[in-house]
């Protein structure tokens, strides 16, 4: 999968976070999770959104520290707007609303 980290790296995420024309949503888990399916649907519904499947959480320690979120929502910069737990990330409406709120700020 092209958006998976690894093989992509922290630097790849950072590059997109530095781009003010894209918002970013990170999902931490595996490809078969409902949470990742939600991320893909969000990608298909909302333009100018980048999504990443994080399989190694240490790759995003820079933004989440030692927390263990299932979803991390960024707006138009590299500031974390909201973290979602596993059940929140598994709820499509919660994910879409969080991304929309991040884009509106």
């Amino acid at each position, binding site marked *: 999968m092209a958006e998976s980290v690894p093989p992509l790296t922290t630097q790849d995420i950072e590059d997109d976070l530095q781009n*003010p024309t894209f918002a970013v949503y990170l999902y931490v888990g595996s490809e078969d999770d*409902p949470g990742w399916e939600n991320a893909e*649907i969000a990608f*298909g*519904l909302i*333009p*100018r959104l980048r999504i990443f499947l994080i399989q190694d959480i240490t790759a995003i320690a820079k933004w989440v520290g030692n927390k263990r979120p299932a979803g991390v929502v960024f707006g138009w910069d590299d500031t974390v707007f909201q973290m979602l737990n596993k059940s929140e990330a598994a709820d*499509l409406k919660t994910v879409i609303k969080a991304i*929309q709120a991040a884009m509106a700020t």
Partner: protein
Amino acid sequence: MRAIQPTKLLAFLAMILVAAGCATAKRRAAMQPSVPNVGGGAGLPHQMVEVDRNGNRFTNQPTRVEAVDAHSRLIIEFPKRAEIAPAPLSQDWKDLQGVIEMLNQRAAAYRALNERKVDPRDPQAVKQLQKDASDAAANAVSLLDDLEKVGVSGDKLTAVLSGRALGLTNQARQPYLNLAVWATNNWDQLRKQAEAHQKLVESTSKVTVTVQALRESLSGGPSLLHIDDWDTRPEGAFSPIDRTGLRPTDAEQKRLDMERSAAESVAQLINSVQTNQDGFRAAFQTKLAELKAEAGRIQLQFEDLAKNWRSELLPTVLTNLDSLAASTTPGVSDAALSIKTNLLAIGGIVQMITNDVAAAEGLVNLLANPQNVNPLDLLLGNNGVTTTAEKLATDAQTIVQQIQTLPQRIQSIATSLQALAPEVRERVTQMLSDEFKNTLTEFSQKFPADAQSLATIWGIVQSSIGSAAAGEVLAAADTKLIPHTIDNLVPAALDLKKSGLALGDLVTMKLRATNAITGELVESDSYQNEIGFMGLHGKPAIHLIFARSLSGPHTATEWKANVAAAVEWHYTIRRPEDSFGKTWNWLYPGAGIHLASLDQGSDSFELGAGGNVSLWDGLLTGGVGYNFSIKREYVWVGVNLLNLLNTAKSQFITK
């Protein structure tokens, strides 16, 4: 006036304190802080606030009696209409063509925005892009809202948008296309849901809301109060209760007259009980016989149900279920946990019923030979009628509420059992035998009526007639109400200064919202408020006292029941947060001065005056003073028996 033995007096006071302590503590506990909450839940959103004379706002709860300041305004507030009624569905959902067109437009806008080339160094272009993308995201949220209204939500929503509902895989990134195809295939179903939602929106706009305010007072019975814009009753006169307690309003004067009358009656009651026990007992006979008969019926029902519940099997079944709860076989763990939860709940209710067999039996035995028991012991003793019947009546109401859930629990167990092995099924089935289920069904049908009957008789014995009368007043007052539709809601404000209240009155604001089309009761909340003062304030009171002279002949130093008029000053901390404040309010200490009519010498009228202190809103009082007739100091202790003694006055006393 006949003298009372000091030991009997102390025992009497102890009994009164036991009986009345809980009620007073509950009342004072109403001054503890409460968690702000908007009432209404899924019904009509609203909140009740108290606005004090300085404009400070305090949110009140429908679930408890709140202490409020007599100079405040009580207001029920509503949010904007848009937040009350469900939003109508977008016009796009009228026909399939509209939906497909809308989805095509969304998909085209999505593509155009993703393909738009923007130089990140051009802040204006970046800002515009961000705004357009944010709008598109808001449209996505609104699309999900619309889908929810037509019944596509939760797992179904993701299945439709990801294409799984169409049998497609790896298609999640084309939700607009997936939705368009699915909507085409399922248009009839979507249209029905859309029409149903539209009907809901229309019927919700026909909800009518009424607000009533009721005053309940020991001195004046129930009466309705005027709320501006919500009823056609005349506005009350401006009559704030004096904070010093020295200038009583008409309502306050009535309360004091009532207290005096009650205090005099109890002095008379005590003498009546001491001198005329036969007459006193006769007055009780009928009501107590009814109470005994009802308790007997309840006892038999409790015993029937308890004997068919095989509690000895429960530990083994629970152990089996615990081990199954760890199973990895699909469905088994959930089924085991569900059965365990439901069995424990049923066991809990049956246990409560089993425990109450003794309470019912105790009451029956207590009332079996009332003529052989001292009337005061019978009423107010540690295991007297007050304690026993109160517990039984309260438990009965709890049981009535709990048994409503039992059929559903039994059904849920039956469903979950299918997932378990035959031997576990067998054990659970033994516990829920047909005999038990039949008894339970019969109990569920008969018991609520008996519980209600018990509560009614006990209510009469307790002189709870006031509440029933209040209900009648409310029921009869509909013609003067001004109903509001939910698009025309204004705050319902009750100005306590214009309501002719007395301290200690209970003011209830009752909100009802009814769907005029379906007849459904959308909301019914009652907010109860006890009228008091916050901060430093005076409060006049009439006390029943037991006084004796500190010196003099035997007739002067005996404890005798008398009446004293007092003014006490108190300080109330509003919604305290620390334990000191909570304890202070709970104790509600007061200090003041009094005038007492005494009976310590040979004069036909004796007057004394002095200082006094009180706890628990005058429940326990004491004082010292000087008897001007016999020219000696005296001491007194007293209890505020207003509620109990009003009962005595109206129900039991025989002259």
